[in-house]
């Protein structure tokens, strides 16, 4: 099974069949030195998890050329404290552009540092967002969390005793 297939397999699905990538899986992929495209995709998956956990459908739109920034804007609606990861998202976009430029110019050696930084930025975003989901009783973390794997949103509500 390829890595991509393994990831898809491990993704949890909420009541509407939307995919949520578990944090442990995101961390495992980050440990494998992914490239910029995969890093950006992972960052989007992190924000998708937040949007889905709040009962919304992740946007497919882009902002300033990045779906990541549009997802952040969507995720921050009504949750001002979510803006604490706004600059992290913008830095991810910036590092993606840096890497794209370096690759276009064929300078592979100048990619190492920004690639490492981008990995750390995505890791930070993942830790922040999943930590926030836990604090807010969203996601699959503890007895007070909303169990995303349950069949329907109605069962989710009944199943969470003190979320």
């Amino acid at each position: 099974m390829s890595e991509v297939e393994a990831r898809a397999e491990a993704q949890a699905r909420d009541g509407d069949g939307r995919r949520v990538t578990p944090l442990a899986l995101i961390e495992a992929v980050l440990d494998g030195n992914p490239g910029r495209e995969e890093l950006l995709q992972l960052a989007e998956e992190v924000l998708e998890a937040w949007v889905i956990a709040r009962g919304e459908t992740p946007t497919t739109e882009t902002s300033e050329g990045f779906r990541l920034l549009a997802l952040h804007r969507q995720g921050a609606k009504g949750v001002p404290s979510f803006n604490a990861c706004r600059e992290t998202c913008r830095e991810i976009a910036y590092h993606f552009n840096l890497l794209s430029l370096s690759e276009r110019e064929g300078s592979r050696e100048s990619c190492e540092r920004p690639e490492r930084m981008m990995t750390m930025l995505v890791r930070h975003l993942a830790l922040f967002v999943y930590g926030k989901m836990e604090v807010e009783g969203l996601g699959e973390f503890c007895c007070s969390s909303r169990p995303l794997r349950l069949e329907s949103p109605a069962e989710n509500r009944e199943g969470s005793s003190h979320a």
Partner: protein
Amino acid sequence: MKPEYKRVAYYPGCALEGTGHAYNTSTKALGKALGLKLEEVNDWNCCGAMEVKNVDPKVQTYLSSRVMSIAANEMKHSVVMAPCNGCYHNLKKAEYDLAHDEASRETVARISEKAGHEAYQAGQLETIHALDWIKDGVGEEALRARVKKSLKGLKIANYYGCMYTRPRHIFPEKDQGPGSESTLKPRFMDELLAAAGAENVDFPLKTACCGGAHTLSDSDTSTKLVLNILEAAEAAGADVIATECPTCHSGLEMHQVRAEKVLGKKTKVRMLYFTQLLGVALGISPRKLGIHENVSDGLEALKEKGIV
């Protein structure tokens, strides 16, 4: 330069009497060396921090407004300086709420009357951070002229934390073009330390969350967040992370220790308050700046570079 910053009301807040004691010591020592006068707010109280805010935000507004009322009405100050990001944030938020929300004004008026003091009115005071105080009260040129021990050779990652610039609407003076602080990429600390000779590294996590809010409820996530900040600073080439918030500072120090114990991840980067670094550059002894109180051995980093 702003001459009104030469003599300001000083609101240290609870953290600077506890884990952030060295920040208090170094802020006072730095002010003295630069000829800036601090007058501590009489009988100050907690700003409301997170705990009260979570129970009743309007009571938090009152608590912050009481500090401002004493500074403005009893001590006749026009500027209050708070070095802690949490206090600074809460005072600014109270100012905003009192200017824009009638219910907040009513609550503050009612509780102030019961408490027997004059209610604070929006606009009576300007709340500033310790960074504004040095940047606009002294400025880089004057600071550079006073440097006795340049921080040359010391590579610094400046960490501002997430409350210094957020939410943007309570900081109307920021993002106002040249000379004003940026909420997207803060730079005041970078510029002050550069004036003292330090080399600032490009650090993309300068405003990222350190997990301080859930350090008790979810220590592991906090440790991982801090570890990521420390590793990113090291990857950027930093010897030292400069801080300007007691909560961020103690979070970075304590989770650095925890990361080694729990996750087996050791990092070498050291934490120092920006006031300690500027104080060293001005020739103040490390002891007078409370560097020995820090958990991480910042003195070692300074010795390695031949600064002290």
